[in-house]
């Protein structure tokens, strides 16, 4: 136990001498969470500029235009003469959706012939396009139903019967886990992005823990303990003790600032963060000791981390990836963590709902632990009298 404590204290002393790296790693995740949180803080895409091409200029088309512009994501951008103008406006980023009301729009509807509203969408940004199309579809569908009911009433049908006849099948949609759904991207994205910074800082924080021992330090380390388990555990504990509170705090910035809900157990979330941070710290110490070079080890960590979020399945689902990549995505260290976090925070999941994620975390613990022991072995061998540099 004494050796364990001495190694922990020694590790902290070394870290305090690398003030720049330590400051960056402590403040970096919080700045990360604040910037990402600020970007998504409006939670909704609003102010989408709309182009209107009203070739009918009738009371009905004007009424429908008013309904569209009263819908939350839309603001009036331009009135245009033809749809061709919209192409230029969208290429210049001045408008993202265009509604074209053809000539005789009102006349055709009143004559019972039906009319078409052309909706041109700038789909180069799918996210904005999805929001625009959903909002436009909702307004046009409800307006269409209103027009049907009026038409049936004109034929002498009682209002209550006309309502039922116009909509024979009602769709009642209930969105679970993210009630504001399409309009709330903060709930969807922020926690996952913050998890990226948790992984990054847990990998980069201890990146010198192994490499700095070569050239003399390993002999001193061996003087404290020759037990591989004690060396690996003490070194890991020194970093986990610092990184876990930072990561826990970082995970809670979006909750406190943006009011993002954590429906599940806070304790479970904290325990899971601790587990993930420990896995990453052990992995980092192993990479650092095995590569013997902190810069090279950092580059290895960068390769692990950079694409991790995109192929973790957090945004683009794993089942939509090609076979081999899907398997690789499941095996990434961040995958079980982000999914468990999402399940706990958004779905209110308990331990029983997290079986696949927990199994993957156990697998990663076994792997990272074994590698950390291998790293400790390399350090011990380097510190042996014949090989010591000091």
């Amino acid at each position: 136990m004494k050796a364990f404590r001495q190694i922990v204290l020694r590790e902290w002393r070394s870290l305090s001498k690398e003030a720049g790296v330590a400051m960056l790693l402590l403040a970096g995740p919080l700045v990360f969470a604040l910037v990402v949180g600020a970007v998504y803080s409006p939670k909704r895409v609003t102010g989408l500029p709309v182009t209107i091409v009203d070739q009918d200029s009738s009371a009905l088309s004007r009424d429908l235009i008013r309904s569209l512009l009263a819908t939350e994501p839309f603001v009036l951008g331009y009135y245009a003469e033809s749809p061709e103008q919209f192409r230029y406006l969208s290429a210049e980023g001045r408008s993202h959706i265009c509604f074209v009301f053809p000539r005789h729009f009102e006349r055709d509807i009143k004559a019972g012939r039906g009319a078409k509203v052309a909706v041109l969408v700038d789909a180069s940004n799918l996210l904005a396009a999805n929001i625009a199309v959903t909002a436009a579809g909702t307004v046009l569908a409800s307006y269409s139903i209103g027009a049907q009911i009026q038409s049936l009433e004109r034929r002498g049908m009682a209002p209550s019967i006309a309502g039922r006849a116009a909509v024979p099948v009602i769709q009642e949609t209930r969105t679970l886990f993210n009630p504001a759904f399409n309009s709330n991207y903060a709930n969807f994205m922020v926690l996952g992005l913050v998890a990226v910074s948790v992984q990054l800082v847990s990998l980069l924080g201890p990146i010198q823990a192994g490499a700095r021992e070569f050239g003399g330090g390993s002999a001193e380390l061996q003087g404290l303990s020759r037990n591989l388990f004690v060396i690996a555990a003490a070194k890991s504990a020194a970093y986990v003790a610092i990184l876990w509170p930072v990561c826990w705090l970082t995970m809670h910035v979006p909750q406190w600032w943006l009011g993002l809900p954590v429906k599940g157990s806070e304790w479970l979330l904290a325990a899971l963060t601790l587990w993930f941070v420990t896995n990453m710290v052990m992995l980092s110490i192993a990479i650092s000791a095995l590569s013997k070079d902190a810069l090279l080890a950092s580059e290895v960590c960068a390769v692990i981390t950079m694409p991790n979020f995109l192929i973790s399945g957090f945004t683009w689902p794993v089942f939509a990836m090609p076979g081999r990549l899907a398997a690789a995505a499941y095996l990434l260290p961040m995958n079980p963590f982000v999914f468990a976090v999402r399940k706990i925070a958004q779905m209110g999941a308990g331990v029983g709902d997290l079986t696949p994620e927990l199994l993957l975390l156990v697998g990663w613990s076994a792997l990272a632990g074994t590698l950390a022991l291998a790293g400790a072995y390399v350090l011990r061998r380097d510190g042996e009298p014949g090989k010591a540099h000091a």
Partner: protein
Amino acid sequence: MSIWKRLFRRELKRLLTDRRIVVIMLAGPFFYAFLFGGVYWQGRVREIPIVIVDQDHSEMSRDLSRALLASENLSLAFFGTSTADFFEATKRGRAYACVVIPKDFQRDILRGRQGRVAVLLDGSNILIGNVLTRSISAVIAAYRTEARAPRLMAGGVSRARAAASAAPIQAVVRPLFNPASHYGYFILAGLIIVALQQVVRIGAAISLSLDAGSAARAELARIGGHPMTLLTAKVAAAAALMLPAAFVAIRLPFDLFGSPFRGNWLLAFAILTVFVIVQILVGYGVSGICRSALLSLHALLLFSVPAFILSGFTWPSYAMPGWLKTLSWLIPLTHVTDAFRKIALMGAGAQSLWPQLAVLIAWLPLSVFWGYWGLKRQTALHHAS
């Protein structure tokens, strides 16, 4: 041989013989281009598993189930007996939506009452949720029209008239620039540009940090020359190495993964050239601030994701709060990703891109100043010797 040529050759040799930099600057862009291309290869989320709870077991409910499962975007996870089955399945990631067709669905419709269909959606992934909402709503809307039209026809109305009456206002949605709503077309080029930014900055920062060693400083002092000569030689050497890799990497999604490119490649390459040069200089500037290769690498890694989010490539800049909108507008990544998307998907020319080009060109003197400061700080070169 002029001093500039000696410095250029020295830098090129150092870059090509340092395995670390070669891997970062040359292999990095290809690795990310292939990886991201592979992820988004399919382009659309299809066959999303759903649960159907058919409590009516009627001809009409079976028809509706068949119509739902005929959609290419939906697939059957299982037929459930109640919504509890779905709640269980969704937490395990086995299903993302549940359609409940209640008892007496058919009877109600045939009697002129409204049949209700409940749709439960897992909204935790908006991307999947969006596809589900659109697909399920489209099937039910079509079914609604089908259910209404025969009744009108029975009343002596013609088929065309019945169809028009059932849906008096039709929205004909035409997505421009990305008609198939292919996710890969939307995101791939932007991701590769982000990866390029990252590898160029990291490579440049590490290479300058290596010049901060006493041996390198002594060698530079021996060669002599003004710090600006050294800066231009270093940038030229790094650009000579990096630009061909950047051009090939950015073309990969278009040539290999089939993304459409409607604009002019020369314009795209010209923009990429300015961007890469700016990023090399920014890498030197970051190295000057951090002083060590390790700290530079950590700083660049930590701020890469916020920079991507800030660029407005996915979450649009106009939906950000005011001060972040300004910040987003100031960073070069915003303008390069935006320009690339417009050139590739919209076929935009230089005249449509002047705001992006103006910001990018304004970054050139800024980054030269920053890079020059970083180089002087790292190499301790102050005057011509």
